[in-house]
């Protein structure tokens, strides 16, 4: 700070100007700046209301035409102009569920490793590497998934799943049909890799916030590391971990490009997770520029509105939980 703040031109009294005039000028700039920042903050609210309003207006024709049955109809036929959102909604929920089933335990175990087991000097490099995983653009996951991961699953994993579960009642329909490579399972697995860093990062932060006294007390009683983690750290940070999981879920629900590459874009509901399907975001990305009629565009916008409402609820719940644990940590 070489320059002294008082040397600011606004601070100096020019020869002619009186002291009162300078003070007035300062007051005016002060107020202008405050209003400027306040309006910028309000602008953030304007953006959100704008997003909701624009989506509602865009979706209105489709919602008027199909009503509430839009959400419960599976048909998606651009030729006869019949549109229903059930297949994309189903695909979104199923792929996200697959992602969370894998990413939640793995993410929490990585955070357990980072906070309790890992050597101190190794913590930062590993944490940074996991965060880099979060920084890779989703289109990279998409192209990698299409050319590398899907063929691998098709050749080595899916035939194995089909054979293994063929005669298991209940599970056989889940892993049925020819191995396409692309499909709901592939999309879910890629989503799992993508949300893993988010869950790990937040779990690690909340685990780190556990008062050392609590852990030391448990170790003093002779608990093993796992027992300390399972019975002291996890119960103490439960709300925060759930918040982190919800945040990851929000990402998974709205993720577009990685899924678009590998989902297959088929507007149908299959019991088997090896079959192609579609998600809300993939349907919009694939079809929006090709949608010629107004009703088609409007139906896709209605899909966007549904997605926004779902993610808004999930993210709001996540933020609420995370703010609760922040308050407790002081």
């Amino acid at each position, binding site marked *: 700070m070489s320059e002294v*703040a008082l040397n600011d031109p606004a601070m100096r009294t020019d020869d002619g100007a009186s002291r009162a005039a300078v003070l007035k000028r300062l007051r005016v*700039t002060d107020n202008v700046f405050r209003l400027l920042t306040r309006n910028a903050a309000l602008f953030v609210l304007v953006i959100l209301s704008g*997003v909701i309003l624009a989506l509602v207006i865009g979706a209105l024709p489709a919602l008027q035409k199909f009503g509430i049955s839009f959400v419960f109809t599976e048909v998606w036929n651009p030729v006869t102009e019949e549109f229903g959102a059930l297949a994309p909604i189903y695909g979104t929920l199923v792929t996200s569920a697959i992602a969370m089933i894998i990413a939640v335990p793995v993410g929490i175990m990585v955070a357990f*490793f980072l906070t309790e087991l890992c050597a101190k000097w190794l913590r930062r490099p590993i944490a940074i590497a996991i965060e880099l995983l979060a920084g890779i653009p989703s289109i990279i996951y998409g*192209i990698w998934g299409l050319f590398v991961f899907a063929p691998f699953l098709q050749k080595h994993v899916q035939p194995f799943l089909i054979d293994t579960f063929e005669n298991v009642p209940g599970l056989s329909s889940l892993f049925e049909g020819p191995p396409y490579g692309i499909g709901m399972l592939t999309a879910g697995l890629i989503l799992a890799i993508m949300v893993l860093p988010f869950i790990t990062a937040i779990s690690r932060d909340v685990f780190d916030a556990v008062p050392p006294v609590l852990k030391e007390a448990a170790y003093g009683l002779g608990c093993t590391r796992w027992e300390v*983690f399972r019975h002291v750290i996890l119960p103490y940070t439960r709300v925060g971990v759930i918040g982190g999981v919800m945040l990851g879920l929000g990402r998974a629900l709205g993720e577009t490009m990685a899924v678009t590459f590998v989902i297959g874009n088929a507007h149908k509901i299959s019991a088997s997770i090896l079959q192609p399907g579609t998600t809300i975001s993939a349907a919009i990305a694939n079809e929006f520029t090709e949608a010629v009629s107004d009703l088609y565009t409007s139906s896709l916008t209605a899909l966007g509105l549904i997605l926004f409402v779902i993610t808004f609820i999930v993210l709001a719940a996540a933020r609420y939980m995370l703010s609760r644990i922040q308050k407790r940590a002081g």
Partner: protein
Amino acid sequence: MATFASNPLYARRRRVDVVSKVLAYAATAFGLGWLVLILGILVVNGIGGLTLDVFTHDTPPPGSAGGLLNAIVGSLLMTVLAVAIGTPVGVLAGTYMAEYGRHDKLASVVRFINDILLSAPSIVIGLFVYQIMVAPIGHFSGYAGAVSLAVLVIPVVVRTTEDMLMLVPDTMREAAASIGLPRAHMIVRIAYRAARAGIVTGVLLAVARVSGETAPLLFTALNNQFFSVNMNAPMPSLPVVIFQFALSPYEEWQQLAWTGALIITVTVLALSILARSLTARK
């Protein structure tokens, strides 16, 4: 020791502990493995096509050689404009929340909404900008692409600006106030200066975030196979070209997609490492 080891309860607890440790190591190896695998395959597939032609030629028609020049220029133009729009708004909004509104209702509502925008699906932002710009104007444009990216820049900058200003010690603010410095001058001259590295970090992170974004550009900037700096017309971008080329059946196009993917990833990772090192020095 012998008595402990022969105690079945103790043995079981130790077994569970060992299993949990193995699982934790395995989970970490699993997470890091993907990073290595994805980056490795990206380098192997992308580096072959990484010639000077990529930076000097435009995207080719199917079946012939070419480069990515128009896509790279389009991405740069839209990113620069997006940052130019998003940074002032974001910094000012973050300033309000850290300096003026620490305890008021507006700031906490904005903070909540901003956090939601931070993770909102980017494709929805694309739909939003389509509704407010593309549909009324009647055609796709680089401006619309830049605006949709700016909407993604703002929450990142708001968040980091607020966080970084909160780290500036209040004693500095009090010292400035005690010599009669008006609040606006205190913020610009003292607080901004103390938080400068952090605010720059926020802008870099925002650039890293938007330079890989594809979904919001698909129906705002669309694409353009020719070189164009006219932002009032459809504009190509690296991610959208990768999307189009990767899904095509032509080998030249797929190779260009891999090369483009490598360029984007290196850029994004370099930006986020640079951003991290800026604040880590403190």
